[in-house]
């Protein structure tokens, strides 16, 4: 079968829906005149989401001062950071699967959280926006969720075929479905009105040397490779993808800094998975 990109985009409305307030947060990414107190109240109405967000906000990776309400977290951490934490807390609980037995959603989120943690650490070293890097790292593989939710049986074939060939996931997706998760992720990012930088990072994290891909794509590319190499997904068949020498050079970090990055990635990963995967 071959899925056209038109079909893919039409089907995006069928995806398991996120809580209404999360959709509102996604839509507010480039808005400046947003009423924070109204949003904080709406998020607070969802107790599970609030609890998870606050635990994340109070984890050692983010805060030192203890926030006990969403409003406080927004005061201490700022609106942008808090919004990204709410998204992280909401996203990791969504997209239940089941019709695609080969898809391991635990391993998927573990890899996503590891990539997010590493992207955040790398961003700090590169003096890049850490919140944006964290969110891009967390959502870089979101296209896989689109495909597994929309086409569970066919995606099961993709995963079994990839395992049999021990080959590249993107190639197998293209061969079986006619689309890959980069296209699906970019379509969803556009549908959810992510910023242009975020859309580019999701579309080009596999090929960060593409002209116009942006530096965020470089960070996510390397963070993803590190997450695989540190073996954090907990997948016995783990495979390290190709590593772009252009992206590696662009970061320009010496070995002692890398060892530091690995250590901090693992520490943040442990703490965040304990909160997000609980």
């Amino acid at each position, binding site marked *: 079968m071959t899925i056209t990109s038109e079909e893919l985009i039409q089907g995006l409305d069928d995806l398991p829906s996120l809580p209404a307030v999360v959709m509102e947060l996604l839509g507010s990414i480039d808005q400046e005149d947003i009423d924070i107190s109204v949003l904080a109240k709406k998020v607070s109405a969802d107790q599970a989401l609030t609890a998870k967000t606050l635990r994340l906000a109070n984890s*050692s990776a983010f805060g*030192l001062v*203890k926030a006990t309400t969403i409003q406080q977290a927004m005061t201490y951490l700022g609106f942008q950071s808090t919004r990204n934490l709410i998204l992280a807390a909401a996203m990791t609980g969504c997209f239940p699967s089941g019709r695609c037995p080969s898809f391991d959603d635990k391993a998927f989120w573990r890899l996503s959280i590891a990539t997010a943690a590493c992207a955040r650490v790398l961003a700090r070293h590169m003096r890049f926006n850490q919140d944006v890097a964290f969110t891009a790292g967390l959502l870089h593989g979101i296209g896989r969720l689109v495909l597994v939710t929309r086409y569970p049986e066919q995606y099961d074939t993709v995963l079994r075929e990839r395992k049999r060939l021990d080959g590249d996931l993107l190639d197998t997706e293209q061969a079986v479905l006619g689309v890959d998760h980069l296209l699906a992720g970019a379509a969803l990012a556009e549908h959810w009105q992510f910023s242009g930088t975020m859309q580019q990072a999701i579309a080009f994290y596999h090929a960060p040397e593409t002209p116009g891909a942006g530096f965020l794509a470089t960070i996510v590319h390397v963070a993803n490779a590190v997450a*695989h*190499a540190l073996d954090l997904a907990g997948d016995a068949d783990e495979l*390290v993808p190709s590593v772009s020498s252009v992206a590696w050079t662009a970061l320009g970090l010496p*070995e002692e800094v890398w*060892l530091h990055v*690995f250590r901090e990635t693992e520490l943040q990963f442990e703490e965040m998975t304990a909160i997000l995967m609980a």
Partner: protein
Amino acid sequence: MSDDHAMVPVTQLEPGMVLSDELLDNNGLVLLAKGAVLSEATIASLQRHHIEAVPVARVEAHRAPDEQAVVARLDHLFRQHDLDDDHDWAAKLLRRYVEDYRLERQVAP
């Protein structure tokens, strides 16, 4: 003071250390919860708060990594990479660094 923790001066803290007790500021507000894992950022904040020493949990005896197992797993993770191929040098470096990290080798700055 019990055996399971030690007061460590802020200047000697390292990322990854775990607080054995909650940490209060001068006003009695909780700065860090018991069990919090210290990061570079939190250590810097402690210095900004003029805190001198904090209670850190003692870790169990350190076990040396199993070199053979580490190398075998890395061989498996990087099985699709040709490490003799000069075009794949970034993957080669990543692998070497992860190996140094796992085997806790000392790296000269």
